[in-house]
């Protein structure tokens, strides 16, 4: 019977760590060399929903998604596009099968996104706040 409290403690710790991971704040970033400046929530949502394809200065913008397996994906869409994973899939299915757009390219991690952003100043993505480094600049912190 003595083992039960340990299991409970372990499980509680695990749940807390998962909860912490899921609630990690995300920030919207572009390459440090990008000409893009601050964007508001609506502008970022328009880019990631294919409703806009350029920055306010007219230069082309290329949104990069994280896969829906990443905690950053849910956190970003919860606060920016306000769509669940199912609603997002439904939305992009409507765009794809109507010929009106294609879903953004996806990456599977913060590191992969940082690598891509470094290669193309037109790209815009989102990462965990703690993953920000000197290669990118934050243009929206929801």
């Amino acid at each position, binding site marked *: 019977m003595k083992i039960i409290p340990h299991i409970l403690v372990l499980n509680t710790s695990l749940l807390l760590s998962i909860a912490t991971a899921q609630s990690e704040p995300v920030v919207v970033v572009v390459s440090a060399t990008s000409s893009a400046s601050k964007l*508001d929530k*609506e*502008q970022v*949502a*328009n880019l990631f929903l294919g*409703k*806009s*394809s*350029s920055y306010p200065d007219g230069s*082309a913008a290329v949104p990069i998604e994280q896969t*829906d397996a990443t905690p950053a994906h849910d956190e970003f869409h919860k606060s920016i596009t*306000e769509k*669940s*994973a*199912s*609603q*997002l*899939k*439904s*939305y992009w*299915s*409507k765009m*794809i*099968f*109507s*010929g*009106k757009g294609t879903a953004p390219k996806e990456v599977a991690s913060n590191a992969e996104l940082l690598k891509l952003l470094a290669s193309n100043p037109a790209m815009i993505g989102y990462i965990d706040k703690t993953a920000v480094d000197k290669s990118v600049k934050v243009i929206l912190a929801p």
Partner: protein
Amino acid sequence: MIKIPLYTLLLLALCSITTANALEAEYAGMKFTGTGFLTAAVGKVLDGSPKGLSDAGYNCPCQISDYSHQSVYDNSSLNIAPDSKLGLQGRIDFTNKLSLTSQGVSRGSQNGRPDLEWLYASYKLTSDTTVQIGRKRLPLFYFSETQDVGLTYPWVHLPPQTYGWAVTNYNGINISHTHTLGSWSTTLNAYIGTETVINNPINKIYAKNDRSDDRWSNIMGAELFFSKGWFEGRLMAMTALAQSRIVSGSCVDTDSCTMDWGQKTRRNMYGFSTVITPNDWLLMTELLYTPVFNYDYSFAASASVGRHFGKWLPMVTYSIYEETILAPNAIDNERHSNTSVALRYDLTPASDVKLQFDHWLSYGGTSFPSIYGNSNMLTLAYDLVF
């Protein structure tokens, strides 16, 4: 005993797929993407009137779920065919500006016969402007272009009162442009084209052995989307010269029938839609006004209210269709309404199950209610996108 055609077995086999992704391949700088969608539906008209075998061969009471593709449920055994369909889309990106897309659909209502319904080339003139040429879906309503993709909407089938026209596709050219005005996002899509429908499926809903053909020429139309946050609006206008012909004799069984077409009639359509999604709520409206020069005008509308509860989405929809024939003392004005209660559950982001109850009420005309009067129907569907 329920007869299960081969295509149904294929649909059911595909139902076993719970996670699926698009097929992607690259060769010589070109990228190929294969995607698809599936709806496996079953349903039955529970009760209603009139009763008996209709001229269209249905064991009524019966109810229309999709005019455009001859989808009708009746009161016999469980109906599997009317709303079940399988679609495959292939897209080749030759460059980041030029692509070719084709889409074929196999429908239960058409005995599983595969039809190539979309085939178009797309070229990006700028990052905001795209021109497309080929065969596409005619964008009359908010969901017209994804009417076959059940995952994109909350119902088992779209409200028949609004989505009920024979001409669903067109051959032509369209140009679309997106523009941002402050925090508003707008998209304007304009198109021209023509379409001929041989053996109009809508006619089969009324009489199985009759054949009529429809032709819309000089189609010109535009749709404007405008959205901000949880609000999205859509305005649509379209005009076309419509002709039809009743086909008989030896001509019935050939697509190359040379019978004369009837007189060209100007058909105009005007539409307005809203999709409002504050917090977890989902409010949708759709209005359509269709005057036909010197003959009649019709008004169709639907309004829906739903709310997301996690993966659940219950929704109530009321829709009406009212025709007014201009001739003095005309009595055969087709008028009916439908009230539906739908419940959707998202199994995964790419799949769902839906249950829907429809209450159809006819309150105008003489011809239409003699076949499709009042009825209650229950349908269940599984949708998948892969």
